């Protein structure tokens, strides 16, 4: 057998042996090798000590209210809206309380921004006056143009008589 310490390929054999997870046939072969290999023997002894040390660490008992709390959370999960269920897992925990407020603010801002613009400016009476003023100006301009046209015609008619004979 190739020495497990020398070849990293078989190093897990030693770990498995110390964890008593090695099948009996391979364990027997390894034990025969360890009898003649002081490095592997030392490794095995040390690893068994580590294993025993780790065995000292017992886990603590689980809180008796663990299941009750979990089922409460599952029930709350069931009653949450689809939007909350979709968005909540992606939000950092610290942001979660602020999210509804932020969402409401965004909604209000969007409504204000995209609402159809209301008539802004002059009251109706002022607008009517402005339209009347514009019409008067147009009429006056047209009158002026007509007067100019007639003056022009008169000038043409009178022009030959003014010429010297």
């Amino acid at each position: 057998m190739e020495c497990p310490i020398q070849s990293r390929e078989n190093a897990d054999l030693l770990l498995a042996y110390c964890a008593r997870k090695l099948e009996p046939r391979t364990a027997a072969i390894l034990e025969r090798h360890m009898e003649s290999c002081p490095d592997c023997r030392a490794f095995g002894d040390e690893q068994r000590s580590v294993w025993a040390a780790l065995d000292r660490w017992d886990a603590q008992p689980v809180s008796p209210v663990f299941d009750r709390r979990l089922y409460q959370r599952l029930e709350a999960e069931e009653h949450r809206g689809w939007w909350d269920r979709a968005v909540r897992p992606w939000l950092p925990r610290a942001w979660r309380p602020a999210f509804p407020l932020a969402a409401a603010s965004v909604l209000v801002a969007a409504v204000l921004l995209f609402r159809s613009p209301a008539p802004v400016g002059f009251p109706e009476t002022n607008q009517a006056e402005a339209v009347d003023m514009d019409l008067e100006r147009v009429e006056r301009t047209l009158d002026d143009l007509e007067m100019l046209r007639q003056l022009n015609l008169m000038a043409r008619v009178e022009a030959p008589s003014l010429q010297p004979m």
Partner: protein
Amino acid sequence: MNERVNNDMVAVAALEPDTELMLRVKEGDTASFALLLERHRAPVIHFLYRMVQNQAVAEELAQEVFLRVYRARTSYEPTAKFTTWLFRIAMHLALNSLRDGKNERGQESLDVETPAAPGRQIADRKPTVEQDLVHEVKLREVRRAIHLLPAKQRAAVLMHKYHELEYSQIARVLNCSESAVKSLLFRAYETLRVRLAHLV
């Protein structure tokens, strides 16, 4: 490719009672979820406790693990052993917690005496005060040695030592190759052998 995945799923479902239970949860059977919780509650909490070394944080993270399992029920596909999937979720949450330092605020001091396990309080062989003290000192050393390991090595050792996961399972949980897991474990145990040598 799809055929292979389907074959894997059938094989896993056929071999694993947990996978069958989870498939029933997927169909809306809440009693099966209760059974899964009963079977895996303690191992998940114990793994998380040893990862973050704080019981309250470990239980909070375990709640999140089972919530995630429940949330994922509709999309669950048995492509791996249920335990592998469960430990993958737990490990992911533990690493996030360690990274964010959430457990530091309330971290149980390594000097605080933890409650003795029920198995050590046998009436006719009650340990003396001195034996208790020696046990506590040694336990503190073990916890400290584990705590000082890099997170991935720590997770690998805990899954290997306390939960007896196979190399292939640990590899899937840690998202690496089996040979990488063997290497991680070898280095981790090497460090532990040095740190715990004085306890022998």
